[in-house]
Every structure is written in structure tokens, then in C-alpha cells.
């Protein structure tokens, strides 16, 4: 694990449609918030890590160069990491590695996206290989829906039961987003609203799917020495796991998703977690699709394979349940992709430091955050704790 590493500050923009502000200005907005939260200035920062989804999302290649000043990187070492949807966790891990290695004491990590400036599904379709799969792909929904179908078939989950549980995931995330001032979609939805919403990619309906958001997130990592000096209540990184898979969708079993499973196992091993359902207080799962949240719950060992719908229906992952998932409203209600995985981490930091406001899970001490990316291909997990 290297040196102990803490998160000493986080920042988020108000996510949503942001035609009022240029991309660099939006990014700079979040840097100022994070620096203020940590109580430091740019002078204290040793290096900057930035990430987005494909740069083509906004039509500017290498966005980190385009707004180096907005991320505070003028005169500092700068790195860009890009792993599609899992970018947010990748950049967090990069910041962690940088400090853990002893090569830097304070690192600023920034994730951003302005999805409404491009055509998000057209851009995401360019993530697919150009020879075999791109013509059939339909952005993210096409792939994720196939995974959900495969999962229900593999574990003999009746379609109606899957539908019911997915609707409940949607209702619960939307309820949670009402408590989150940064969330993009803030509206109450009912089970019937979800089940009757427009089909996007059968059986996935509009309210099973995340929005396209503009937004940014920044997280500041610090060494133990600095953290103890600067920050009254840091969150400590206890475990990081990341795994990749083959690029062709059909070459691994997405119903048990090896990369998600192994990334979590690696993070648990480092953090010394044996029974995640009991030991974790809160989880921020990357859930752009309702059905996928259930697959992740299984991969992360929150429940046995094929039983996530039962656990969802009995309320295990709801606010007030045994392991609340996505008290922020999750990716389902806010998805500026390059920032999303980092928002998951920032939200868990707020939870274990007691700063989550109306969405606070009472007494949360240890939390899991996660992001997924590529053609169902990458998964990253981070465990944070209030204790060193």
C-alpha cells in the first residue's frame, strides 16, 4: 500500500445542463471549491491528475491541455488518465499512487465532463472496436442492457421480478437525489412511473437510465504528515482495486463480471474486509442503469449471485437499510462521466467524515466507492475509512 494517504478536501459543481458556462470555467469552479474545502492554496499542490471520458465527448483532444490553468496545473506536473466510465476511479487511484509512493505530498485530482456539448451516445459508440462491434452497438444502453439480460437468464430471474426490483432501484435513487443539492435529476418517481416510462433498449426504460450531465469533481489527496497538519477530519484510503477485461463483449461472462468482482476483492484484501455487507456502512456504486446496480451488489459480495433482486425488494440497500447504496442518488441521477467515478469517491469521503448533510448515513465509518468503464470492461473500487 505504500505510505498512508488521506483525502483532505473535495468539491463538486452543481451538475446538470451547464450551457451558462464554458468548459474551462466550469472546471475551475470545482478547483476553487476543493481548495477551499481543504483549506489550502494551489501553492501547496505538488501535482495534478485529470481525467475525462473520451476527449471526443467535447470535440477537444486532450482536454487537460486545453484547460491546464483551470485545473491549476500551470508550472506543475500533470497527468491525464482515461478509462472511459471508470476514469473517476482511475484518476483517484493515480492520485493515491502518487502520494503513497512518496513522490508527492499533496495531489489534486480532477474529473470533468460536459456531455451536453457533444452527442453522448454517438461518442460512446466510438469506444467500440471499428471492425466487428461498432455498427451494432448503441452507445452505453445497448451494451449494458445486453449484460442485464444475460444476468437474468443466467440466474433464472423472472423478467417481472427483475423489472420490479429495477423499478425499486430507480425509485430509491431518485428519492436519495432529493437530498443531494449537487444532483442533476431531482424529482420523485413512483414504481409505475418507472415501469411505464419509454423503452430505450428493451427491457430498459427511460427511468432506468442515467441522464447526460455536465459537471466536475475535484478531490485532494495528502500524505499522513500533511493530512494531520492541515485537516481536522481526513478520510483515509484503505484499499484500491482495479481490473480490466477483454475488449470484445462476448469474451467474458458479464453476468458474474470478473473485473468488478476481482477489483472489489483486491480492495477488500487491502482493507481487511471479510464480510462487506456487515462491515461497510455505505456504498456509492456506479449505477448508470438500474439493473446494473444489482449485478454490482452481487459482484461486491453484498448478497449471493442471482439474489440481488430479493435484497433490493426487502430494502437492504435503501436509505435506512443494512447497507445503503448511493445515498447521493448515484450515477442514475447524475452522470458527467469523467467526473462520475470521482464523485462516488467524494461522496464516500463526505459520508465517513460526517459532512454529507441531508444524505448522511448516520455514523458511517467505512465506505466503498466504485466506477465502471469501457465496453463493460473496467472496474475500479476504493475503500475509505474515518480511521487511519
Amino acid at each position: 500500500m505504500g505510505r498512508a494517504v488521506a483525502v483532505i478536501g473535495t468539491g463538486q459543481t452543481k451538475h446538470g445542463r451547464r450551457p451558462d458556462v464554458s468548459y474551462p470555467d466550469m472546471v475551475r469552479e470545482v478547483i476553487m471549491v476543493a481548495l477551499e474545502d481543504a483549506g489550502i492554496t494551489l501553492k501547496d499542490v505538488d501535482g495534478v491528475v485529470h481525467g475525462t471520458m473520451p476527449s471526443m465527448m467535447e470535440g477537444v483532444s486532450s482536454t487537460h491541455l486545453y484547460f491546464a490553468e483551470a485545473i491549476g496545473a500551470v508550472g506543475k506536473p500533470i497527468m491525464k488518465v482515461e478509462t472511459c466510465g471508470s476514469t473517476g476511479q482511475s484518476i483517484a487511484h493515480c492520485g493515491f499512487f502518487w502520494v503513497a509512493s512518496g513522490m508527492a505530498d499533496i495531489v489534486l485530482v480532477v474529473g470533468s465532463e460536459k456531455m451536453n456539448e457533444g452527442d453522448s451516445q454517438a461518442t460512446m459508440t466510438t469506444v467500440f472496436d471499428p471492425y466487428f462491434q461498432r455498427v451494432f452497438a448503441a452507445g452505453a444502453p445497448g451494451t449494458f442492457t445486453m449484460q442485464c439480460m444475460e444476468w437474468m437468464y443466467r440466474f433464472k430471474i423472472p423478467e417481472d421480478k427483475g423489472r420490479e426490483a429495477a423499478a425499486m432501484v430507480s425509485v430509491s435513487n431518485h428519492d436519495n437525489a432529493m437530498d443531494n443539492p449537487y444532483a442533476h435529476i431531482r424529482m420523485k418517481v413512483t414504481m409505475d412511473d418507472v415501469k411505464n416510462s419509454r423503452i430505450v433498449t428493451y427491457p430498459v426504460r427511460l427511468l432506468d437510465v442515467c441522464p447526460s450531465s455536465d459537471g466536475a469533481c475535484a478531490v485532494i489527496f495528502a500524505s499522513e504528515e500533511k493530512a494531520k497538519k492541515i485537516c481536522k477530519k481526513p478520510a483515509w484510503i484503505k484499499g484500491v482495486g482495479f481490473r480490466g477485461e477483454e475488449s470484445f463483449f462476448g469474451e467474458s461472462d458479464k453476468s458474474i463480471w470478473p473485473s468488478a468482482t476481482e477489483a472489489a476483492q483486491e480492495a477488500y484484501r487491502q482493507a481487511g474486509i471479510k464480510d462487506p455487507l456487515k462491515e461497510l456502512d455505505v456504498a456509492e456504486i456506479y449505477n448508470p442503469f438500474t439493473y446494473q446496480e444489482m449485478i454490482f451488489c452481487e459482484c461486491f459480495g453484498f448478497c449471493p449471485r442471482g439474489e440481488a433482486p430479493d435484497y433490493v425488494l426487502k430494502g437492504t440497500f435503501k436509505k435506512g437499510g443494512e447497507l445503503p447504496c448511493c445515498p447521493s442518488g448515484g450515477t442514475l441521477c447524475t452522470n458527467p462521466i469523467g467526473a462520475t467515478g470521482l464523485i462516488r469517491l467524494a461522496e464516500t469521503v463526505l459520508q465517513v467524515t460526517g459532512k454529507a448533510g441531508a444524505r448522511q448515513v448516520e455514523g458511517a465509518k467505512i465506505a466503498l466507492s466504485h466506477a465502471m468503464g469501457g465496453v463493460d470492461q473496467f472496474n475500479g473500487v476504493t475503500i475509505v475509512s474515518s480511521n487511519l
Partner: protein
Amino acid sequence: MAKEEYRIIEAEAVVPYELALGGTVSNFFDYLKEEKIMGKRCRKCSRVLVPPRSFCPRCFEEMDEWVEVGQEGVVETWVYINMPFYGQVIKVPYVSAQIRLDGSDSGLTHLIAGFDLTNVNKVREIVKLGGRVKAVWSKEKKGNILDIAYFEPVK
């Protein structure tokens, strides 16, 4: 300044590409022209992958043994796509699927078609998880993945 005064620039970025297929993919497409679906077998783990790979993604071994696989297979998963987007090649609605061809160990992404796709509930009665499908060839071959026009359910 009022909010509506903040403007937006509309633009399009068009970038041309010439992608090298390499040996394995060139040959796979050449076989399609002859209405043959060929995979490659890994000497180490013995898995047959379609589309073929020049190396095994798990063993990292060279894959040099060509194997002809069946033109029929099993639907591992499918999706009904009813979502249009900019530059989409196939017009909605359509069905994309993962098809495990007989004799192969991976899913091939392709279309399931050959029937009326307008009503999703009717489509659900025809396309089944675990159901068998069969390749339908395009008359005119271009040496690309659409030389297989689509897969149709086996009666």
C-alpha cells in the same frame, strides 16, 4: 448579463481514418466472402474465439490455428434498440445480440432480424435467450462484418 445572452457555438468535427485490419482480421473477412465463419484456437487454453484474435487475450499466446465454426449458434443475450443517435449505421428499431456459434467459446456481436421488428412484445416472442439462430448472408460481399446480413431464429 442575463443568462440567455451566453451563447453556444454549433460545430461538427469530422476526422477521416484508414484503419489497418492486419492479417487475422483481413483473413477473417476474406473467409466471410466465401460464406465461411472462421475462428482461431488458442494452443494453450484451447478456446476458439470468433471474431478471431491474433493473440489470446487471456494467455497472451499467439493464435495461429484457424477453425471453421458453425453458422448456427445460441443467443447468449440480446437487446432491442429503440434509441436513435447521430451517425447510427443501422436504423432503429433493431436487435443486437451476442451469439455463441457452435464450436466457439465466445459471443459474436451481430443482429437478429428477418421479421417485423416494430413491436417489442412481438419481438420478445420470437427472440429468446438460449434460442438458436442461423446466419443469413448478404448477396453482395464487401469483406466486412455485414457480409453476414443478420442472424435469424431457427424454426
